[in-house]
């Protein structure tokens, strides 16, 4: 992979910008990344972004950092990975260093709380907007097994509160089983 200074620079600015505004956990940053790297810059395709999400979620460590590592490797190899990770961890480090001087006042401030409460509504809208777009492309696949996996995973996660890791592992097992069966069928023919 040829190292491109301009791409690295863009990757750094994008991850810095995304990380600065990522409130509310790992799934939010994955959604911002999808919008930036898939829809806007076309560096990654939609399928790959879903694979990145699954890997970032199931590997140990912070989802945002994991996703940055995967996106960085994909875009510019090792140095892309370093760039994306630095871009992702710099904003929280700087912000927390500044806040640490008056953090008790910050935690108790009513105006701060109200702004954050409003932003939470925006976070829900962003996640569901991305899920909507991804969901329609699953529905277009017209494969009953895809529909079944989508439905079962949703019920397990949202209604039953099953740990996300188990859901990913179970779907992986279904995928392997299906592939093994169709492979066997191909061999018999």
């Amino acid at each position, binding site marked *: 992979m040829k190292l491109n200074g301009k791409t690295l620079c863009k990757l750094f600015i994008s991850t810095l910008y995304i990380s600065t*505004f990522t409130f509310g956990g790992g799934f939010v940053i994955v959604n911002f990344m999808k919008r930036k790297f898939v829809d806007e810059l076309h560096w990654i395709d939609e399928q790959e972004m879903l694979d990145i*999400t699954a890997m970032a979620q199931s590997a140990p460590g912070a989802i*945002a950092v994991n996703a940055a590592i*995967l996106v960085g490797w994909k875009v510019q190899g090792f140095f892309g*990975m370093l760039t994306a990770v630095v871009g992702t961890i710099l904003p929280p480090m700087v912000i927390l260093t500044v806040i640490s001087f008056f953090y008790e006042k910050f935690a108790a401030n009513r105006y701060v709380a109200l702004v954050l409460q409003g932003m939470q*509504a925006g976070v829900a809208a962003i996640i569901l907007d991305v899920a909507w777009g991804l969901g329609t492309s699953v529905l277009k696949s017209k494969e009953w097994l*895809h529909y079944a996996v989508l439905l079962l995973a949703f019920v397990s996660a949202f209604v039953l509160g099953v740990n996300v890791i188990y859901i990913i592992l179970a779907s*992986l097992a279904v995928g392997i089983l299906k592939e093994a069966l169709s492979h066997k069928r191909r061999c018999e023919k």
Partner: protein
Amino acid sequence: MIYLQLFFAFLQVGLFSVGGGYAAIPLIQSQAVEKYGWLTLSAFTNLVTVAEMTPGPIAVNAATFTGLQIAGIGGAAVATLGCISPSLCLVSALAVLYGKYKKNTAFQNVLQILRPAVVALIFSAGLRILRLVAFDEQTIALQNANYIGILLFAGAFFVLRKWKLNPILVLLMCGALNLLFYAIFGWI
């Protein structure tokens, strides 16, 4: 010495927290509060609140804060490095493997089944936050409904779908509007 301790304490947090922020909280507590006594329990509780209010992964926030308290900027850097190094190794290995086998048909077929599940997980995460926004309390009942929150959500969803507005702009507008609504309609 203290740098090494910080590094290894947060290395464990990074290595054993699987599945995001909420998995990391008890691990941070056991290292920074119980094992080393770097933070008091009330300082830790405030830290969790602040970490939730500021951007970035909770583990990185906690590492920065604890490192700063114990050993200044250097401590913050060492603790953060400790917390991300398991990811740097393991996830990099995953990235390289993925890049290598991405074009393999069997691997692609298996991933085909994984993708709808990931979509469902994203959908579920969004709905969970929406539930938190729409109802102030744990129980879902009409008298607990937060109408301003529901309105903000509906508006944000509409402009994102219809006009593909920049999500970060939408986020900031939601925050500003919520403050404005409460300023106009009084403090409830």
